[in-house]
C-alpha cells in the first residue's frame, strides 16, 4: 500500500493542470475514477449540486462527451480552437488520510482561456478530492469555485 508524500500530492495537481493546457484530454479523463464528478458551483459556498444550478456538474460520461466534441469535425464553435493557461498557487493539503488513501487539496488559481483575439481571465480555487486506486492517485471530485461564480459569462469552452 503506497503512502503518498506531500510532494507527490501537489505534483499530481500541477500535472493535471499541465495536461489540460497541453490538451491531452484523454490522459486527463483517465485521472478520474469511474464515479467521479467535475463540479463548478454557481453560488459562493454552494453545497447542493442537485437542486441548485451549477455551471458544471458532470459525471465521466458527460466529460467524455465534452472531450470527444472538442475534436469533432462539425464542432464549429471550436474552429478555431480555444487554448488555456493555468497559473497555480502551491496546493494546500487540507486532508491526508494515508490509511484510507483519501486526500483533499485546495489550490488557488488564475486561468486564462483564449480563442481568436479574445482572452478571458478567471480566478478561483480548485478543490481536489483524491483517492488511492491501485497504488495511484485518482480524482473523485474536482470542484472549481470561481471568485465571481455568479457573474454573467461568455463561453467557457475548456476545463479549469
Amino acid at each position, binding site marked *: 500500500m503506497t503512502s503518498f508524500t506531500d510532494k507527490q500530492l501537489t505534483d499530481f495537481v500541477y500535472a493535471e493542470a499541465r495536461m489540460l493546457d497541453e490538451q491531452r484530454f484523454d490522459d486527463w479523463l483517465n485521472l478520474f475514477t469511474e464515479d467521479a464528478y467535475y463540479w*463548478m458551483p*454557481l*453560488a459562493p459556498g454552494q453545497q447542493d449540486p*442537485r*437542486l*441548485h*444550478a*451549477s*455551471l*458544471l*456538474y458532470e*459525471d465521466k*460520461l*458527460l466529460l*467524455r*462527451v*465534452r472531450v*470527444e*466534441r472538442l475534436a*469533432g469535425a*462539425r*464542432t*464549429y*464553435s*471550436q474552429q478555431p480552437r480555444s487554448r488555456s493557461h493555468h497559473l497555480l498557487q502551491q496546493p494546500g493539503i487540507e486532508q491526508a488520510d494515508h490509511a484510507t488513501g483519501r486526500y483533499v487539496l485546495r489550490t488557488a488559481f488564475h486561468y486564462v482561456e483564449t480563442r481568436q483575439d479574445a482572452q478571458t481571465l478567471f480566478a478561483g480555487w480548485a478543490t481536489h478530492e483524491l483517492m488511492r486506486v491501485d497504488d495511484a492517485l485518482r480524482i473523485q471530485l474536482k470542484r472549481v469555485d470561481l471568485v465571481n461564480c*455568479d*457573474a*454573467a*459569462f*461568455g*463561453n*467557457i*469552452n475548456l476545463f479549469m
Partner: protein
Amino acid sequence: MTKYQGHPDAVRALVRDIEVHKDLYIDPELFALEMEHLFANTWVYVGHASQVPNKGDYYTTTVGTEPVVMVRHTDGSVKVLYNRCPHKGTKVAGEVCGNTGKFFRCPYHAWTFKTDGSLLSVPLKRGYDGTGFETHEASKGMAPVGAVQVYRDFVFCRLNAEGVGFEEFFGQSLSTLDNMVDRSPEGRLEVAGGVLRYMHNCNWKMLVDNQTDTCHPMVAHESSAGTAVRVWKEAPEGTPKPMAVELYAPFVSSYEFFENMGIRVWDNGHGHTGVADSIHAAYSPAPGYFEQMVAAYGEERAKQILGDVRHNTVYFPNIMVKGPIQTLRRFLPIAADKTLVESWTFRLVGAPDLLLERTLMYNRLVNAPTSVVGHDDLEVYERAQEGLHARGRDWINVGRLYDPAERGQVNVATNGTSEWQMRNQFRAWTRYMTASMKEGAV
C-alpha cells in the same frame, strides 16, 4: 441626420413578406428606437411574484435598457418602479434582491420613498421652501412604469401609460403559462435553483428567432447532442439510460420529427413549437408525480395537462417559456450587438424534487455559459452578427413555407419547420415599433 427616427415608413420598409433588413440586427439607431418604442409599447416580463414573497422584498432588473425595481408594496400588491432617484438619478435599490422594509432610502442624500415610489421624506426639507419644489418632477418620487399586470404570479409591465391591453396583447398564448402552473399539484410555481446568466455578443432578436427555428438542431447541435448519443451507444448493454442522455438525444431528431411536431402561431408575435409532439415528450416519469396530479385534478384533466408537451413558447418581444421543463429565458437587450441571456427555473410546488433536478440539469446542459449546446448556438449567432455587416447582401430570409394567405390569420397550427412564427414576430415588431412613432418627430 437620422435614417429611422421620425420615419415610420422607413421602419416599415425593413420588414417584407419573407425577408427582413439586416439593420434590424446591426444598426444602433434602430436599437435605440426599439428601446424607446418596442419595449415601451409591449408587455415585457419583469419577474415572478415568488421572488418577492414578503412586504418590502424587491428585485432589480431591466425592461429594455431601463433599470427597474419590482417590489412587494405594503398593501401586498407588486409594484414596478423605475430604479432612479428623482433627485440626482442614483439607482435607489442596489442589490439584485433584498428587503427594503417599509421604504426605499437613496444612498446619496437619504431621500426616502414608499414602496409605491411616492416621496416619503427629504432631509433638511425647508431648503426647498418657496422653490416651487412641489411642482417639479422630484417631488413625485420614484416613477412607476405605465402599467403592471400579474398573471398567475408572472409579473409583466408596459412602460407606456397608454397602449395595448394585457389580455388583448397575449390572447390565447397565456395557455402556455397556464400549463406550466397547472403542472404543480398545488397550482403554484416558485423560482428555484438560481439563474444562469450568459453573455452573448449578438442582437437579442437572434435568440428570439432561434426559439422556433427547427431546422437548426440537427445541424448546429450535431457536435453536442450528436456526440452525446454516440458516446452513449458505447456504454455496455443494459446500462440504464442517464437523464442527461434523455435530455440531449431529442436535439438530433430528424427533420420529419420537427415537421410533425408542429408550430402554433398566435397574434402579436407570440407562438410555440411542439403542438402534437416535442423534444420534451418522452422523458421518464417521476415516481409518484402522476398520482399526485390525479389526486389534485382528476385523471382526465391530469392527462390533459401532462399531455400538453409544448416545446418553446415565444412571448414577444423577449422571453421564451418551456412548460414541460419549467424554464423561462429572458433575452435582455444591452446593445445592437450585445444581449444578456438569463435562464430561470421553477419548482412545481408539491411535486417530486426529481422534476426540479431534471429542470436544472436541462438548464445546465443547454443554457449555461459552459453548455456545449449553448456554445453551438452562440457560435452561429456571433458569426451572423459579424457576417451581416457584409455589403454583398442586405436581407435575411424568413420565407420557409410562406403562404400569402397567412397574413391576418391567428391561432393557427402549421408545419413544424415553417418560419411563419418568425414572420409573426417581425409583423409584431413593425406594429409596436411604429405604434407610437410620429412622422418627422425627433
